[in-house]
Structures are given as C-alpha cells and as structure tokens.
C-alpha cells in the first residue's frame, strides 16, 4: 500500500487556508510533501476556535472528494468465500475482492477509506449509513458489497460538485442542522435523494389522495418528517434538519421556529 504517495498535492485554496491558520508550518509542510490527507487531519485537530472564521471556506474545501487510494490487492486464495466485484464509487471505477460477508458500508469505509458514511446501529434502524445507489437512497449496512456488481454508488464524499457544496449541504450549515454530526452524512444523502423523489411525484404515507398523479410535489413539514423518518438524530436537531430541507425543496427562505423548553 502506497496510497499516501498517490494523494495529490495541496490545492492553492488549501495552501491559502493553511497559511492563514498556521503560517509558520506551511513551508516545512510544502517541502516535506505532506499529503492532502494529512492536511485534513491537521486542520481537524486545529480546533474550532481557530477555524471559526474560516468555517464556510473550510467546509467548501472539505467538500472536495478525497483522492482515491489504491486498494489493497488480495487474491482469491487469501479470502474465504471471496467475491470479485466491480462497481463505481463517486464516479471512480472500483474492482476488488471482498469477503462475501462484507457490507457495502464496511467496504467503502475500510477498503476505500471513505469514512464519511457512518456505522450507527449496523442493523438498518438508524440511517447513518445511507448511500445513494443507482439514484436511490439505500442502507449500506444491509447491502452486501458482493451484490453491487455494475452499480453506481454515491457516498457523502461525492455529493458536492467539486468545491461547490450541494444546496442541501449549504442549507444544513445555514440552519445549523447538526450537533454531534454523526448522523449528518446519512441525513444529507437521504435528503438529496428525497428531492429527486418529490420531483418525480413519489408519494408517502401522509400524502393526501395517492390516486391523483401529480409532479413535482411541494412538500409540507409533515411530509418531510415522514420521508426522513429513516434517519434518526439522537441530538434532536430535527427542526433544523426539516428547515434546511424545506428551504431547498421549496426554493423559498424558511425561518426557524423554535421555543425554549419549559
């Protein structure tokens, strides 16, 4: 494995951000050829105080998909019940040998080092592992990697367009739609797919008169809550999540409604 050498150099934007944050370290880092992965690790430990003023800028940088590391090559003889499988992840072709028991979630996290998708419950009850496969949101913890032959997988790392955040990502930042952030990658993948479902006129359990075809659908708060019920947030950021999705879905600014408990 020589994946670190395959990571690209820092981009001009990243160099600028680093220079602003830790000017004395930049030269050394550039001379010793730090990888982008190390850069990301460094800024993640740099502390939110330092980063606060750069939050939006940094978010945009982080939205860029990480370079794809080479996969640890295994042979069939090394893996009991090994299955060779090819599928796309965030536009990159992947071909690898997996243990038949490997879920899509574990494969993407452990073999491709795309750790955005989270393992919450690992039993299909929380939605933290949500990915988009062939345009549809699914649970990657209940999907075998072996069953993904020929499919196209999008993880949270592939949601932004280059350095441009997806409108759902931008709205999540604007509306403060997370606290600990663990469920957020799943929430965002789920919400991105929800937009397409509404555009396509797909109904939900709370849709009135399912026998009347209509598209695109304008979703009420109640509709968004029902359609997002597969994504649990134990911090309880639901009002903010719903506000973010409503804003993007309706195309109109949504004010947050909240009250102090009591």
């Amino acid at each position, binding site marked *: 494995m020589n994946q670190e050498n395959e990571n690209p150099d820092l981009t001009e934007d990243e160099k600028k951000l680093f220079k602003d944050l830790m000017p004395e370290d930049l030269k050394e880092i550039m001379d010793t050829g730090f990888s982008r992965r190390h850069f990301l690790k460094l800024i993640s430990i740099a502390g939110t105080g330092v980063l606060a003023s750069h939050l939006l800028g940094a978010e945009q940088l982080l939205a860029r998909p990480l370079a794809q590391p080479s996969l640890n090559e295994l042979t069939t003889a090394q893996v009991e019940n090994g299955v060779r499988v090819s599928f796309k992840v965030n536009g990159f072709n992947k071909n690898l040998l997996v243990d038949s028991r490997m879920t899509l979630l574990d494969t993407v996290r452990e073999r491709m080092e795309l750790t955005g998708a989270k393992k919450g419950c690992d039993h*299909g009850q929380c939605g933290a592992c949500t990915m988009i496969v062939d345009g549809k949101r699914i*649970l990657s913890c*209940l999907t075998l990697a072996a069953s993904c*032959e020929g499919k196209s997988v999008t993880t949270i790392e592939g949601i932004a367009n280059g350095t441009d955040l997806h409108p759902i990502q931008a709205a999540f930042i604007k509306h403060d739609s997370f606290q600990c952030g663990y469920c957020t990658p799943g929430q965002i993948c789920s919400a991105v797919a929800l937009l397409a479902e509404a555009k396509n006129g*797909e109904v939900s359990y709370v849709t*009135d*008169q399912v*026998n009347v075809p209509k598209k695109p659908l304008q979703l009420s708060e109640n509709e968004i809550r029902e359609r997002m019920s597969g994504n649990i947030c134990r911090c309880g950021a639901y009002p903010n999540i719903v506000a973010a999705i409503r804003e993007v879905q309706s195309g109109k600014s949504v004010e947050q409604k909240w009250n102090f408990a009591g």
Partner: protein
Amino acid sequence: MRPFKYTHVNTVQSATQLVSTHSNAKFLAGGTNILDLMKEDVERPDELLDITFLKVADIKMITEGPNKGGVSLGALSNNTETANHELIRLNHPLLTQAILAGASAQIRNMATNGGNLMQRTRCPYFYDVDMPCNKRVPGSGCGAMEGINRMHAIFGWSSKCIAVYPSDMAVALAVLDATVQVANSKGQQRRIAFTDFHRLPGENPEKDNNLLPGELITAIELPPNKFASHSYYLKVRDRASYAFALVSVAAGLELNGNNIVQAKIALGGVAHKPWRALRAEELLKGKEATEANFQAAAEAEMNQAKPLEYNRFKVELGKRAIVRALDMAMNNGSK
C-alpha cells in the same frame, strides 16, 4: 456473521434447483431482513443465492393482467416502485398506503415484493438467541408467553408461539384477494390464495408460510376490486413513523349509495398472519354505512380476541382503529 458462499443465479430454474440441492442455501433479494438476522446469528445459511440478477423480465415488472382490470406484481419489483406505480395508485391505492406505512424510504427502495412476504417476525424473543423460541429452535419453548408480550398476538396464537407477522403490505394483500404465484425446480408453477399463504403458529411455529422446499415466489396477482375509491390503511404505532404496528387496519368498502354491498377488513399486528376480520365483514354486509354499524362490527370482531398479560390494550385499540379506518375509507382516505 458466519461464513457463507455467495452465488449469482440467472434463471428461476437454476435458482430453484440450487436451493433444492444445496442444503441450507437461501435466496437473497433486497436483503433487508435476512442480513440483519444473519448478523444476529438467527439465520445461519451456508450459501446465499442472489436472485436479483435473474434474467427474467416479468419478475422485475408490474404488468396488467392476467385478467382484465387485474395487475401482476413482479416478486423482484421493489416496494417503492410498486407503491408508486400508476396502476397501483389508481386501482389499488390501499396497497400504496400500506406499503408506504412500512419501514423507511431507504428500506422500501431495497425490499422486494416477494421478500416482503418472506420476512420474519420481529418478536424480540425470536431475535435474541439466548432466549427460548419455538420458531427459532423448535421445542425450546416460548420466552414471550411469560415475558413482555406487549407487541404480541391477540388472535390465533397457540401455546407454542404468540409472535405477530410484521408486514403492512401483507395486510392490504389480504383484503385485495391476492394470489401468490410460485415456481419450483421441476419448472412447475402453482398459485396460492394470499390468505392461505401465511400460517397460524399451531404446533409448528417454525413454519411461517405454506411454501414447499425449493419454491420461489415469482409474482403476486391482484384481481380488480370495487372499493378503490373507498379504502384506507390505518397504522397505529408507538411513534409517528418508522415503527412496527401495534394494530393496523386495511379497510375497503364497496358501496351502493350509502349501503355497504361488501366490506373487506384485515388487521395487522394482532396475529401470526394478516387477520381477516370476517365477523365484522359479515355484520356490515348489506347494512348502512353509519358510525353505529361500524362500532357494532368492530365490537363483534374484537370481542373474540384473547389478549395476553401486557397487550390487553390492543382490544380497545383495535375497536377504535377499525371504526376510524372505516370512517377514513368513506372519505376516500382524506384526512
């Protein structure tokens, strides 16, 4: 998870032959239930036969027929596309509602129609391998009988098992007079009336349904119905969404003016299979569609229930749910 061999199958014939000849092989479609059960060590197959790569068009499609006004649901069509298909939304909106009341958007995108019928109970004593369970290990006893049986059956249970069937889709299929089409390894096909597909637990709760070894569901057929504009699926649960039913009601009313020509009612969350409320249906036949008649029918059905220690509330809940579902059906499901 225990090691297993993963195999693609391309034809119904090879799928049914392999599952007949390889001992302890199972079919894999959406995987939403079997993979969970394998992680829990409840299911322990040696081999999974992935049928999602079958090269048979019909099994992945929703088509008109075979009889006029009817529709055939491919076993490998997923729950989302079935619920949203124009033929289903227009002619069988009850099925759309029932499917959409179950699980989450992500799971409905994965789960297939055939797999929905093959899912297993969510009884926590079935899921916990340290507990006795006659369904998981025949003869080991029932942990739920003397345990926390709040979610369990009030109709049709036996001393061996008090688990309930978890599917919402199945409750609607029970009132839509569906037929399950299956194929076997000899290339033969047979049809099973939907209400005969799942079983009551009796002495053999390890058998969820009447499929024979080696059989594969290929389609679910729905005849035309006369209550598309007067139907509703009501689901009552512990939270507003993404939870299994405490009680659910699929109701369809065929009306002549305000008179009930025929009522079709099935209950979910109360028995080892979708529970057709035949007594309530019989009482409503030919009667006027009034609140009082709905109430009387609901009482007659639910008074036959045999609740357990922690689920007595389901009797009253069931009465109210039946009345409300019938009210909603009268209003064409509008809230």
